[in-house]
């Protein structure tokens, strides 16, 4: 009985995913029916929209997975992928790179990737002090990065400001990373999630209980920190800092599917992907032919949904 229910749920998720996929693929400056496209329309569909949709899906899924992991790792339901300052240091890296080589397109991604890893290494120094001190160090580091970012923005020549701004709000149109890398990372992260899901469930009981049940908590925390940070760094490199996907999606999935991670993690990986595909489609159609940074849309969708969840949630 339980298996039938599970199968129906997953079938429904796949149907919803395909529907969203076709819908967002068709939407744009003009509506294109994917089953009848030819000539220039087909080119727009398969060479412009499809790669961008897949990027959005992978980035959204990665962010939601990282969010779910950080929430368990820090035993704090309000944690999200950027809470430890990885996004801040990535932004500093991206803007610094932009100042250095303002005319190169890929330079922000490289800068962001390096910046993200500098941020991760900084946090790692505090990992052995325990969850609370690590969280505190991460939050303080995030404030530091944001100050450095402010400094760089004040010094940035005017023509770079718009690019810096749209990168900081999250923008998929600049993504230089190969789609296969992003989708591969999505699959790998999901696989890691399956292997870790039982340990993560036990970690929900607190570190002492997990230890008493035979989990090597220190090792698990280190792996989780590294994995979640690496995934965040990749997502930030691909699309800048896109807020709220990593915070809201895991909570939404917990409400729908319960707290066990063998359900929460795949549901987040797919749900985050759907949310970002949807938000990005609106971002590129709302004021077409111009585009909005997708981070604006995720926050505008994410904040009301999250506040609604907060009101519904029993304390």
């Amino acid at each position, binding site marked *: 009985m339980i298996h039938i229910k599970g199968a129906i749920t997953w079938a429904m998720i796949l149907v919803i995913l395909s529907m969203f996929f076709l819908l967002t693929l068709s939407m744009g400056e003009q509506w294109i029916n994917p089953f009848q496209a030819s000539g220039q329309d087909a080119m727009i569909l398969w060479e412009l929209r499809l790669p961008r949709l897949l990027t959005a899906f992978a980035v959204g899924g990665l962010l939601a997975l990282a969010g779910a992991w950080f*929430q*368990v790792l820090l*035993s704090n*339901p309000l944690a999200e992928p950027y809470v430890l300052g990885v996004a801040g240091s990535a932004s500093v890296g991206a803007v610094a790179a932009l100042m250095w080589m303002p005319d190169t397109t890929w330079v922000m991604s490289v800068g962001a990737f390096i910046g993200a890893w500098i941020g991760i290494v900084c946090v790692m120094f505090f990992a052995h002090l325990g969850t609370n001190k690590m969280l505190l160090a991460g939050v303080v580091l995030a404030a530091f990065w944001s100050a450095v970012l402010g400094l760089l923005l004040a010094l940035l020549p005017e023509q770079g400001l718009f690019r810096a701004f749209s990168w900081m709000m999250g923008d998929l149109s600049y993504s230089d990373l190969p789609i296969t890398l992003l989708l591969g990372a999505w699959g790998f992260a999901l696989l890691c999630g399956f292997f870790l899901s039982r340990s993560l*469930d*036990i970690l*929900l*009981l*607190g570190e*002492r*209980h997990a*230890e*008493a*049940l*035979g989990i*090597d908590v220190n090792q698990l925390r280190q792996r989780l920190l590294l994995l979640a940070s690496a995934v965040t760094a990749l997502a930030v490199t691909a699309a800048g800092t896109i807020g709220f996907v990593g915070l809201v999606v895991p909570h939404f999935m*917990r409400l729908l599917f*319960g*707290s*066990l991670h063998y359900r929460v993690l795949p549901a987040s990986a797919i749900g985050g992907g759907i949310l970002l595909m949807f938000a990005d489609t609106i971002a590129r159609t709302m004021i077409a032919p111009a585009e909005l940074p997708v981070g604006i849309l995720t926050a505008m969708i994410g904040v009301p949904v999250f506040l609604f969840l907060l009101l519904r949630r*029993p*304390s």
Partner: protein
Amino acid sequence: MIPLIKFNNVSIQRGKNTLFSNLNFTVTSGHITVILGANGAGKSSLLLAMAGLIPVLGDIDLMGKPLQLYHPYDRTQLIAWQGELPPTEFGLTVEQRLCLVNDCPKRINHVASDMDITILLSRALAQLSSGELQRVELAALILRDAPIWLLDEPTSHLDLKHQIHFVHTLKKHSTKGRDIILILHDLQQAKVLADFLILIDTQGDVHYGKCEDLFNRQTLTQTFDASLVDQESALMPDYGVTIS
């Protein structure tokens, strides 16, 4: 007198505080041992050390073999530790929490009804009172079926009815051969349960001995640094008035 847990020159530090130095005593197998002591005397730390959950200086032998030589999995098969109540903010249900102990055992309904939590099984942990949550934790303990129980104030949140029931449960499991070491604050419960006592006084000195040798007004007054009165063979806290 089979030794269960043997302390060889064990010192325990928490942060920069040295709680115990050079402990030497042996807890014998086949009994209920109750740990008594004042707040901050180090009861919980002593219990965690026995469970192998905090680092210590010196050797603690579990059934003749140093604790740190056990594989973590083997250790958790032998010892079940229950301490503070778990965090509840991630929305696990009672049934899911019990299934984390080992793969959703068939005995779950039996144990749940014994612990009076059957109607709570589908509720989220966050919706329970602390007493109900403690009953869930005790059910998880029983489900683990480990031969040694180390319990940190297992009755602290329970109402009278469930305290009485759990005291009976402990007696029953002890008779069946389980080794039980537990921290208690209630002297009457300690008297009823304990075969042996571990007393920790405010100086960090540990006294191990038979309950009938140590459970007296003079010794316990010294342990707790508190005033006690004898009242018809029971030892009561001295509240200044006689309870008739």
